[in-house]
């Protein structure tokens, strides 16, 4: 986490939108601890760290829920621009970082995203892990089927991310047609090196986009702390889906996940 930007931005926006007073922020390994007039909250983004016994004491930090591209994919379905999602293709093959530190975290990310975008609950999973670096999954969520390619690429690699919704009336995707990789708003060409910048949030300018998503997620919870039990329940569900995936790998069966 970029402490120099993250902490002041979080405090600034909490104050600006009157979400909490006297905000103090502590960044520790895999979590953000926020103390304010509404209480003290442990927001955990390394979900693999959450032990079953403490699942009711922490808040899973589901930062992807605040990523604009996913919010808009959800809106495309919600507003009926495309109707009746039937299939989703997901690629999530990225270098390890603090947010993508284990297959459990990646699976939680994508499971929650499927549920957020479609409103369906993942009920069964088939997975076959290749140690702790990669897994393919076929996931059932009601009438929906999802294919997931989840894993790690070498350090410094471009992320391979795709979310494509196949519905009865159309397709929605976060990757441009006829391309294979994420595109960026800025490319800097200087000889052999091509740098890119991904500035999409002026209010949190300069901050890594996922960290910006974390801030917006935390602000959302501070604004509506009554939603915490629902988030904790979801955290347990995501852990159950991972356990089901592990079991599927052992028994090579479609395994039911607790809803």
């Amino acid at each position, binding site marked *: 986490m970029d402490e120099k930007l993250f902490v002041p931005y979080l405090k600034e926006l909490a104050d600006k939108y009157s979400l909490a007073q006297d905000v103090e922020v502590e960044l520790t390994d895999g979590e953000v601890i926020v103390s304010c007039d509404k209480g003290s909250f442990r927001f955990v983004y390394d979900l693999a760290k959450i032990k079953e016994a403490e699942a009711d004491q922490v808040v899973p930090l589901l930062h992807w829920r605040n990523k604009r591209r996913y919010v808009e994919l959800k809106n495309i379905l919600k507003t009926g621009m495309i109707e*009746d999602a*039937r*299939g989703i*293709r997901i*690629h999530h*093959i990225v270098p390890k970082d603090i947010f993508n530190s284990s297959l459990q975290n990646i699976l939680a990310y994508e499971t929650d995203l499927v549920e957020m975008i479609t409103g369906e609950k993942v009920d069964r999973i*088939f997975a*076959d892990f*290749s140690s702790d*670096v*990669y*897994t*393919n*999954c*076929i996931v*059932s969520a009601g*009438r*929906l*089927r*999802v*294919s997931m*390619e989840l*894993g790690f*690429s*070498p350090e410094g*690699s471009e992320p*391979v991310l795709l979310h494509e919704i*196949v*519905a*009865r*009336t*159309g*397709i929605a995707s976060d990757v441009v*047609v*006829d*391309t*294979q*990789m994420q595109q960026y708003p800025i490319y800097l060409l200087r000889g052999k090196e091509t740098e890119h910048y991904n500035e999409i949030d002026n209010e949190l300018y300069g901050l890594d986009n996922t960290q910006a998503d974390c801030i917006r997620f935390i602000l959302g919870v501070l604004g509506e702390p009554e939603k915490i039990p629902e988030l904790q329940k979801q955290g347990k569900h995501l852990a159950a889906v991972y356990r089901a995936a592990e079991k599927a790998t052992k028994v*090579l*069966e*479609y395994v039911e996940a607790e809803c």
Partner: protein
Amino acid sequence: MKQINVAIASLTHAHVRKYYQTLHDNAKLNWVAVSCATEAVAEDFKLYGYDVPIYYSTEQMLIEHPEIDGVIIASENFRHFGDMELCCKYGKHMLSMKIPTFDMEEYDRMIDMVKKAGVLCQVELEMTYNPTTRRVQELVQAGAIGDVISFNATNITLSPVWAFPWQGDPEISYGKKIPLREGDPRFRGGALSDHPHIFDTLRWITGSDFDYVFADVADNIRDIPEEDVLYVTGRMKNGCKFLLDPSWCRHEEHISRPSPGWEVFPKRMEVNYSIVGTKGVLQADCFGPNVYFNGGPNNRYTIQYTYFDEWIGMMDEFYDCIIHNKQPKINLEWHKRTVEAMVRCYDSIAAGKPVYM
């Protein structure tokens, strides 16, 4: 330069249009005749303006043209055995469409029949001749991404069932009417039956064969009696995992003849590879990038494909095999294990479990 004499039988397969240009342009191939399954098929063929004699019976064509060396069997799946029998009877080499048959006993009889007739039978899996596929295979086998952990591929297209209605008829497409699974109103013979290519490429690139397959179908995105969206995963005998998407997940206009404006989604057909190795990841698009326009009958933003030369390489191999009496790379025996894996995918859908080979 020695020529071979080639004919096309039936002209009802969706791929047949791809052969016209190649047979016309390639001086090594002397296009002798075509047989048309129906009057309507003949009328459609005449619109292309090729000066090639038309017959309404494949056998009649073979009798009238004993000079024919090879026949492209471009018929519906359930007619392939009968067409092969005819070719064997008259001693003609064959280029079979991508699915000779899904009936594995019939498949074995095809192999025997071809052997006894002393002719060769190449199977049309044109992705073998796609330059991107070729480069990907070279890169992987040279160790560019280390050991392959997982081979993932899509072969996703619009559905041809409105232009080629036989592909929407389970008995004609699959050969039998078999329910997808208990209580499901749909039958085998849809998107999976149309997309063997990535199953084959997987075998070439990993140098291995299927250990188990697990497949599941989504509810359909169109009202047809066969599957149209499905996913397949599994493991090869060498331990490599895979995930394949052979869906008809691109929407189409319900038109009776492939023509501009057929696609609703800008890109009507894709074959993509995403190969994860111990040292890196390889992403490849076999049909992209391209050029783009909006216009045509529906004024939609559309992809104009810029290369489709697979058919040239495939016909070059067919020629080479006939001239030099060689076995084609994709022959009936090699392809049998690919078709068998596809059948096992249907079995897996029915059972809700992985199926071992």
